[in-house]
């Protein structure tokens, strides 16, 4: 092989390298959005101003172990005097910052997160409407849990009717830690 052939091959290789570098996204990897997607979906419903830190940690552990996406869902109750599709800016004043806080915390742990909002005449109704539209593999609720707005009979309904694994976290005296809207870091 002559020197010129070697030079030509080297030049061709260099051109291919430059072209690939130009064509592919930076850092030689696919965008995060296009990488292997989590296949399992863990629902974390809430309605109040804070959620149990214990429920979030349970969701995080499972998400990490199962390559799942955490799906915090803000359940909003529409008064009977308003149409079901009415905007609810006052409830959103609590719900949106809390969604942001949960997403920030999940992201800081390197976990994928995909939020939802659902409205209904009651919190159960809001949850039912969400479950009619989408499938979830697990639903995590800590009991007794003021932050979900779900009562005991709602939990029984959840266990009876919903084709997902329902994880009810037993109450613990030490379970006083919360994630709240006050935990949003940075400007929101």
């Amino acid at each position, binding site marked *: 092989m002559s020197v010129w052939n070697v030079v030509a091959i080297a030049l061709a290789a260099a051109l291919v390298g430059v072209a690939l570098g*130009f*064509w*592919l*996204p*930076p850092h030689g990897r696919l*965008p995060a*959005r296009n990488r292997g*997607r989590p296949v399992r979906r863990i629902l974390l419903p809430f309605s109040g101003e*804070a959620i149990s*830190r214990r429920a979030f940690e349970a969701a995080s552990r499972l998400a990490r172990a199962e390559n799942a*996406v955490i799906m915090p869902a803000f359940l*909003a109750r529409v*008064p009977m*005097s*308003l149409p079901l*599709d*009415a*905007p*609810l*800016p*006052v*409830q*959103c004043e609590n719900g*949106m910052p809390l*969604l*942001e*806080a949960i*997403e*920030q*915390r999940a*992201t*800081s742990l390197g976990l*994928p*997160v*995909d*939020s*939802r*909002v*659902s*409205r209904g005449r009651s919190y159960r109704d809001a949850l039912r409407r969400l479950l009619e*539209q*989408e499938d979830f593999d697990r639903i995590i609720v800590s009991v007794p849990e003021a932050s979900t707005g779900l009562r005991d009979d709602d939990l029984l309904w959840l266990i009876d009717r919903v084709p997902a694994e329902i994880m009810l976290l037993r109450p613990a005296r030490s379970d*006083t*830690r*919360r*994630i*709240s809207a*006050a*935990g*949003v*870091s*940075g400007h*929101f």
Partner: protein
Amino acid sequence: MSGGQIELVGPPDAGGAGGRGQFRIFLGMAAGVGKTFQMLREGHAQLEHGRDVVIGLLETHGRAETLQLAEGLPTLARRRVRYRDAVLEEMDLPAILTRAPEICLIDELAHTNAPGVEHTKRYEDVEDVLAAGIDVLSTLNVQHLESLNDRITELSGVRVRETVPDAVLGRADEVVLIDVTPTALIERLQAGKVYPAERVESALNNFFKIENLSALREVALRQVAEEVGAKRLVTEANGASEESIAADAARAVGERLLALVEPYPGNQRLVRRAWRSANRLGAPLDLLWVRHPGRTLTGEEERSLRALRELASVLGATILVEEADDVPAKIAEVAAQRGTTYILMGRGRTQRGLGRLRRPLHERLIDRLPGVDVRIVADRASRPAEDER
């Protein structure tokens, strides 16, 4: 009466001779703040200045203080209107017009009249009185304003059926906010100064809660502040027609936000940020996704789009989906149509191939939309959240 009074717009009394009467509205956050009381005090003050004042309609709600203050002011009798089997009492509009005082006090502007009288609503009666050159003093609670009705229903859980178009407040020459603290109002209620004793407990358990009243007070203060802003602009502009001034004023104070979205999970944060900004500016929010023609959505994208639609709906934003090859041109077109003043967008996807040679979208938008602010919302901060409570 310990209510604070904030007089926000105050042209001098011009009297009604020859033209339309002056219209002053005493606005409050709820019943019992002292609107009627202030209206009566103003009536007495005008009477002392030698003006011809009458009470066209007064609702005392059995309050002794109010009844006492009405003494000394000439009051026109109500007329009786038969409706089905009942006899109802209404303001006597023909009597007011015949009597033609200089100033007429007409309580409860949002009232709905009994069928069979001249107008359906009392504010329409007031228009006739003003048109006759009579000055009118009237009262209104903020929850009766049409545009605030839904919001206040959500705040308080109580739906108000009697509403007044916002334009009525806009046409007032003066809006006087009667302000008391929620605590002071609850004390007045407990002292029996607002409702009879048998209604106090029910009121305290329902509408008259500190959180309700605080929110209503904020709404009332904001509403009057906006009225002042709009009126100031109208006053400052000279030489143009009233209609064009009003339109210019609305444009001058009216921001409108447009958030550029795509159906993937990260965009929900952009929408929430845009909503917060819109709230702070008191501006409407539009969301726009420009999709390439014929593009089919994956299952995940469809779910994301549905979630975006639900989020937009609950936030009161409008979501628009447009098809176009030229994305910046379509965004500029929509922004122009919607009167957008502010565009929010995410950082955008990393471009590949020849796309890298193209100028970034935000730069092209700035070129196409002079005068429109463009803000790029940063990706989510990955620093750990700090609260543990």
